[in-house]
């Protein structure tokens, strides 16, 4: 599955678009939207898994860009990262709130998963996708054991909770929590 991937070094000037938004220039917001909206909607769709909900996320995120562009601080990171993070967190807040509604607590989720019957619909492993990634992160991810790598990808790209990863990998919740934590530790160390 090698769909056309957006390059992480895309040449759009996110910094000046955000500066335009902070100066209340609607055309700057429009330019930002026209360039980035399909990538951002793609990120949101993967996390919330519903097209209409993802479009709501995109709407709310751009309204937030307009009202919060002046808080963007280039010293703390790139504008592209700021924008993508804003959309991801908007999407994650939505799915975590929904999960809180559907599954009152993690114990219950675990009790259900201990029946181990949900494995029948486990998702497919994203192994092939990892190769197309860019830079140091790709190298560091390749060095992780597959369960750690898959746990991190399922969480970041698909917005999976620990319980959902446990279902997909047909593994106990405790193991998944340990894989995620150790995987992140190894990534931090590898990327230093």
């Amino acid at each position: 599955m090698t769909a056309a991937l957006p390059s992480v070094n895309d040449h759009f000037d996110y910094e000046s678009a955000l500066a335009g938004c902070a100066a209340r220039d609607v055309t700057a917001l429009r330019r930002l939207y026209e360039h980035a909206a399909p990538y951002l909607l793609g990120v949101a769709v993967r996390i919330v898994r519903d097209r209409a909900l993802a479009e709501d996320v995109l709407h709310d995120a751009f309204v937030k860009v307009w009202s919060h562009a002046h808080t963007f601080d280039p010293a703390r990171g790139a504008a592209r990262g700021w924008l993508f993070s804003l959309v991801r967190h908007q999407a994650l807040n939505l799915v975590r709130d929904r999960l809180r509604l559907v599954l009152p607590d993690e114990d219950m989720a675990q009790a259900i998963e201990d029946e181990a019957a949900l494995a029948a619909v486990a998702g497919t492993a994203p192994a092939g996708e990892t190769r197309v990634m860019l830079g140091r992160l790709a190298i560091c991810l390749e060095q992780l054991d597959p369960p750690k790598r898959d746990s991190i990808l399922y969480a970041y790209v698909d917005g999976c909770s620990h319980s959902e990863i446990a279902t997909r990998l047909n593994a106990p919740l405790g193991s998944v929590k340990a894989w995620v934590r150790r995987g992140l530790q190894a990534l931090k160390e590898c990327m230093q």
Partner: protein
Amino acid sequence: MSDDWDALDDLAAGYVLGTLSAAQREEVARRLPQEPGLQDRVDDWEARLHPLSALAEPVTPAPRVWAGIARSIGHAEQRPKPATPATGTPGWWHSLALWRGIAFGATACSLLLAAMLGLRAFAPPAPPRYVVVLAAPQDKTPGWLIQASSPRRLKLIPLGAQAAPTNRALQFWTKADDWSGPVSLGLVQADQSLDVALDRLPALQDNQLFEITLEPAAGSPIGRPTGPVLYIGRAVLVR
């Protein structure tokens, strides 16, 4: 070496990765503005993991999304660039609540008008008023079709949907935007159509959520979905 890994790293990395619960996410969001140390680590993790965003395939938004944004920030489509002052407090026209209110009022008026005209024009036969396609969340394969010829009755039709494994059941749920949680519409078979009367529920609404989840053979023991979502979709009003 992971000796410099501490509780703050756990929190920051979990926040950026997305594995924290809703309550933990709220806690981090509350602490971030006051704790530069936590903010620094969150920034580091955002930068480290950002390349993974490229794994999500782009999806082109519907034109109404931009129209909605323009409305929400107080800029109608026809007037893309009114000269607003660069400083000073925003005027009433920047009030999201106000514009949402006006937009909602206008939509309600047009729906009422459309309903009245519709009633007059074609009194007896009511065509299907809502349709929902329930698709698999991962690959968007359509699995079920819902037709509702009135807001009080709907028909669920399988389109080659996946059957439940042995000792499990498929359960059909719905939730409108303002309900506190999903309501069960019963267990379903992947090879059978099902007629459902919504007599104990509010009338069907535009955008109402429907889903089919995998549950224990007797259905969810707690009256809410417990298993994974196999198919999901929203009601679309057919005009």
